């Protein structure tokens, strides 16, 4: 049996985990049976909740929850000014440009990789629950256009979550894998991936199981979120104008509005009109009808921004749109009819009698592809043994030369792993240090590109200026992450490199975060057990109340009535406290006290004569579902893992 590696789509809006079941990739649902785990994290005095459980907090007390944190990965204060206008991110007050961002949440501070780690941990638990065993390795997808810092931040999130990310795969490439698995057809395909927060376009050449990415382009800050923000801005304007109340700073109204606007957006993909309907804090209601035509006019500038990357990718691959055999649509935003119309136009699809591929659920296809890649890496199945992914780096790698211009050393769209060797020398006699600035991007000037890191070549043997010959090797690995090594050739000495990543966490910081998350985890576990026990207590009390209306109730003896009443009262009292063991004991007591009633009820049922049922099972019969809270899958925090 090959090693167990899962595939994870760590999305801006939703995240999923999948694995290869035989020859087919499948999604692992959460305990609530739902495949999508919203990428929402809430921190309240009761603990940390993730996914659907956190969404409730997002609506009730928005300041305690965070979503779309993927937009903040690998970025600093100066990068995110635009985001801050629309996203209620509560940044720490003492942040400085160049630092890893910290978000205030429930009285604590979290970096974006830690937020992502919590989402990853939830997916890990879902998978562990499903397999009934530990899951320690994963393939995780990232937008193809993610830069080095954003990729590094994603890898850090994995480490914090206790998950070894064996490979980062570009999202559109993963989608191509999911689609290409069973179609052993060769040809050129374009993957148009328009998600919640990012846009990617990739062009691939398929040849006998080899998926060779030829060109990729995109925008890591363009997605459905941007359309939502436009709609929200208009609604707020409306409210300010017509209703004379400015709600721009009101987090709760903003969240309610966001939820409303997203629902309207989704409805408009199928219907011609949709309603906005939001209750304002003063009790009045904001009502507005939006037609699809209005929506499309509004969203047009956002959608149109996907066209230029598509044309650039075609140009880079030296292909005409008509040469593209298949177009695959990925991401929730591709459900919008206007988006489909644009794709049709760019690749002249209907003119050629073709249709884009939408057979696989656009929300799930990336995770399915990640599962396929995981299987390739595990090397354990006949379904994938012929498959090989040759991916590329989306951005050119360069070094800052004299005068601030960039000397490109690895061009964009180079197949990874890729490397380049550069030689440096000294400018002054006896100089023992050389500073190198590495950047990523397409612009001429280093100041217009993304700064990746500054390297100091140290301990160069003192020589006449221009004599030392320092060979520096830059290597972009299969994850799209940069590695650097250096050697002084005249002396043969390995030059010491001190790397200062411009953005990102140091190894030490990641280490402390791993520990911190375990500390929190214990506290969170305790909190969660209390919440679960309380929920269960309420369920059983509700079932007892409802049971009193049942004819079988009248068959109980006065002693039994007393026992039930006592047990109920006791549970009512105990569940106010925080001792989950006491709550559990009280639940069991009430359950025992009502056992005969449950049996009577069962007996009275016409077709059912199953004995030995408990109140909880009886509750099912009464239509009161004993809903288990699904905030987390049952968690086991293995202390041994703590290093």
């Amino acid at each position, binding site marked *: 049996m090959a090693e167990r590696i899962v595939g994870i789509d760590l999305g801006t809006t939703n995240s999923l985990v999948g694995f290869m079941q035989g020859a087919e990739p499948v999604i692992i649902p959460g305990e609530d049976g739902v495949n999508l785990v919203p990428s929402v994290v809430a921190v309240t005095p009761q603990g940390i909740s993730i996914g659907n459980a956190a969404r409730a907090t997002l609506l009730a007390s928005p300041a305690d929850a965070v979503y779309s944190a993927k937009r903040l990965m690998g970025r600093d204060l100066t990068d995110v000014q635009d985001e801050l206008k629309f996203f209620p991110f509560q940044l720490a007050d003492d942040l400085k440009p160049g630092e890893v961002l910290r978000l205030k949440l429930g009285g604590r501070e979290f970096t974006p990789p830690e937020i992502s780690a919590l989402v990853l941990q939830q997916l890990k638990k879902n998978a562990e629950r499903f397999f009934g065993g530990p899951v320690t390795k994963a393939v995780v997808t990232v937008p193809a256009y993610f830069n080095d810092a954003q990729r590094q931040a994603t890898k850090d999130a994995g480490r914090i979550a206790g998950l070894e990310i064996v490979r980062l795969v570009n999202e559109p490439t993963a989608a191509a894998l999911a689609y290409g698995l069973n179609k052993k057809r060769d040809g050129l395909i374009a993957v148009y991936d328009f998600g919640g927060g990012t846009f990617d376009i990739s062009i691939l050449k398929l040849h006998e199981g080899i998926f060779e990415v030829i060109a990729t382009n995109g925008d890591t800050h363009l997605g459905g979120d941007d359309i939502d923000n436009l709609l929200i801005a208009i609604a707020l304007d409306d409210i300010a104008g017509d209703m004379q109340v400015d709600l721009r700073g009101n987090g709760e109204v903003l969240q309610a509005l966001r939820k409303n606007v997203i629902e309207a957006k989704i409805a408009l993909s199928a219907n011609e009109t949709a309603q906005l309907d939001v209750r304002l804090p003063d009790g009045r209601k904001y009502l507005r009808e939006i037609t699809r035509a209005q929506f499309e006019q509004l969203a047009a500038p956002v959608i149109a921004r996907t066209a230029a990357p598509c044309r650039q990718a075609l140009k880079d691959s030296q292909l005409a749109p008509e040469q593209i055999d298949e177009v695959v649509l990925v991401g929730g935003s591709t459900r919008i009819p206007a988006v489909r119309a644009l794709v049709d136009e760019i690749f002249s699809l209907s003119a050629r009698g073709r249709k884009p591929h939408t057979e696989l659920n656009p929300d799930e296809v990336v995770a399915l592809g990640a599962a396929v890649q995981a299987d390739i890496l595990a090397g354990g199945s006949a379904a994938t043994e012929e498959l090989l992914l040759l991916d590329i780096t989306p951005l050119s790698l360069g070094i800052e030369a004299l005068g601030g211009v960039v000397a490109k050393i690895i061009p964009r769209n*180079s197949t990874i*792993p890729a490397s380049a060797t550069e030689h440096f020398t000294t400018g002054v006699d006896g100089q023992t240090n050389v500073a190198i600035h590495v950047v990523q991007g397409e612009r001429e000037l280093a100041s217009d590109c993304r700064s990746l890191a500054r390297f100091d070549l140290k301990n160069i043997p003192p020589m006449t200026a221009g004599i030392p010959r320092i060979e520096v090797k830059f290597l972009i690995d299969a994850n799209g992450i940069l590695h650097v090594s250096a050697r002084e050739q005249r002396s043969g000495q390995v030059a010491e490199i001190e790397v200062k990543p411009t953005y990102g966490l140091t190894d030490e910081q990641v280490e402390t975060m791993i520990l911190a998350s375990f500390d929190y985890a214990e506290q969170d576990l305790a909190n969660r057990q209390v919440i679960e026990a309380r929920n269960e207590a309420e369920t059983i009390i509700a079932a007892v109340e409802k049971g009193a209306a049942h004819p079988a109730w009248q068959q109980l003896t006065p002693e039994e009535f007393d026992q039930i009443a006592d047990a109920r009262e006791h549970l009512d009292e105990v569940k106010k406290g925080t001792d989950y063991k006491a709550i559990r004991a009280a639940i069991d007591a009430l359950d025992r006290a009502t056992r005969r009633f449950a049996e009577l009820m069962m007996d009275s049922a016409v077709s059912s004569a199953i004995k030995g049922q408990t109140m909880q099972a009886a509750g099912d019969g009464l239509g009161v579902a004993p809903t288990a809270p699904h905030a987390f899958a049952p968690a086991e925090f293995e202390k041994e893992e703590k290093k």
Partner: protein
Amino acid sequence: MTDSNYFAVFSLPRKLVLDTAALEKTYYAQSRKLHPDRFAATSVAEQEAALAEASRLNDAYRTLKEPIARTEYLLTLEGVQLEEQSKRATDAARASGAEKKQITPPDLLEEVFELNMQLEEMRMNRKMGEDDPQLAKDLASAKANFEGMLAATQTELEALWAKWDAGVDADDTTAKDSAKEKMVALLNKRSYVRNLVRDVNEVLEQE
């Protein structure tokens, strides 16, 4: 393997006429053997070795499949320092504070002189908010002319490849050197013309 050149990675002689379809086939076959995905379950040392080999393979393929990159790479192997020349020109320009100038290929002197005049006039017009449709037309046709030249360099280059390859086969140093010199001149001209086209595009795109 790390000491071998890109031609050797594909077991090819140092020749320039290349069957790119065959190159791709070999590349895919080698990728199946060397890609890091194939080494996910091996030791760290094996993974690192595979990473080095796979990146070398990719670097070699990226360079050899593109005609210009292949030619430049071969010239570098033959001791021509194309990059150095350009770097030196950049540094010299910086030191003197002057704009970096490339030497105008002699056969282009007249056309370049006229083009620069037109570009200057166009920029002035832009500044003054004036419109000169005839000038825009002239620039567009100049651009087409230079683009034609770019396309022609490809044919010229292929002729020189054949000369180089013949020199290699005959082990004729004189023939090789002559082909080498002509290729250097042609690549310089090409990069010069490409910059011209870029300049014209910049001016035209401001409309």
